[in-house]
């Protein structure tokens, strides 16, 4: 249904070497950037494999000047896009960033975007980094 570039298998990094990553990303998809448009969307699922809630407060990428967590909401027939200041994932919970709902908005590429890295952050602390080659 959508033209998408599917991220190939990501590289999961964890700040605690040897320990299993507390946060696991899967099904990472980056929509095709449209000519004329300046923003694209990122979709994925995130699973909290730890016993504690995880709060993501930001996502950044060296390949984009700005990355924001957004949510498309439909209220009384009006589509609104709202920035999310944080996303909380309960222990053992999987949440989805998916079309028409929560999504990443990646704006103003800094250069070539053949390989994209996403850093998921809790405040300043890195939770998870996913580096992926864009397919297609």
């Amino acid at each position, binding site marked *: 249904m959508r033209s998408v570039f599917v991220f190939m298998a990501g590289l999961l990094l964890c700040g605690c070497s040897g320990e299993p990553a507390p946060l696991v990303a899967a099904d990472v998809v980056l929509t095709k950037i*449209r000519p004329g448009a300046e923003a694209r969307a990122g979709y994925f699922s995130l699973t909290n494999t730890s016993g504690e809630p995880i709060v993501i407060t930001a996502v950044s990428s060296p390949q984009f000047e700005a990355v924001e967590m*957004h949510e498309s909401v439909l209220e009384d027939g009006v589509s609104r896009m709202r920035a999310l200041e944080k996303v909380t994932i309960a222990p053992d919970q999987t949440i989805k960033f998916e079309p028409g709902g929560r999504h990443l908005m990646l704006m103003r590429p800094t250069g070539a975007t053949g390989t994209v890295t996403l850093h998921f952050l809790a405040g300043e602390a890195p939770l998870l980094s996913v580096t992926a080659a864009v397919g297609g």
Partner: protein
Amino acid sequence: MGLRNIFIAIVAVFAIGMGAWLSYQLAVPPPTPRSATVLPATAPLPDFALLDQHGNAATRDTFHGQWDLVFFGFTNCPDVCPLTLQALASARKELLESDQDPLPRIVLVSVDPERDTPAVMNAYVSSFSNDILGVTGDLEELQKLTKGLGIFFAKSFAEDGNYSMDHSAAVLVINPEAELHSLFSAPHSIEDFVHDLPILTTGM
């Protein structure tokens, strides 16, 4: 006499059955849309003077002569707008492949004319399909069109000064007389478009 009564009874049951079957056949309603809402009375488009993606005039006359599926959005919308346009383009392709006639045209009207110049619209809509009409232009002219159709849009500013557009998410169906005929409310699906559009445009 017993046999005769049985015969009469059989004939009567048969006649009643036939009558019931016939009345059922005559009472089967025409197919109805499962998602779209048909207006009780069509509403003519208001007068407006906008531009298409090639810089040519786009007015009410532009909507004469074919069925149009009109969506209001903006090019810097990464999620809902491309999803909707992609769904419309996919539905239209399916209808084309099944020889649906008439085949509606897809129209994107920008609610962000400040950033969406005709050149930007041209690049954007042609990335979905070569036959999508992109409409943009002066804000005042845009408001004539949206107010006449009950379409809402407004800027929503982020902390960094960037803005997004809030906008009605419906897809409007405009008939060849340039009148609002029906509409699809969000969320949209390819299947609903494919199911309903032949009913809306041909009544079958």
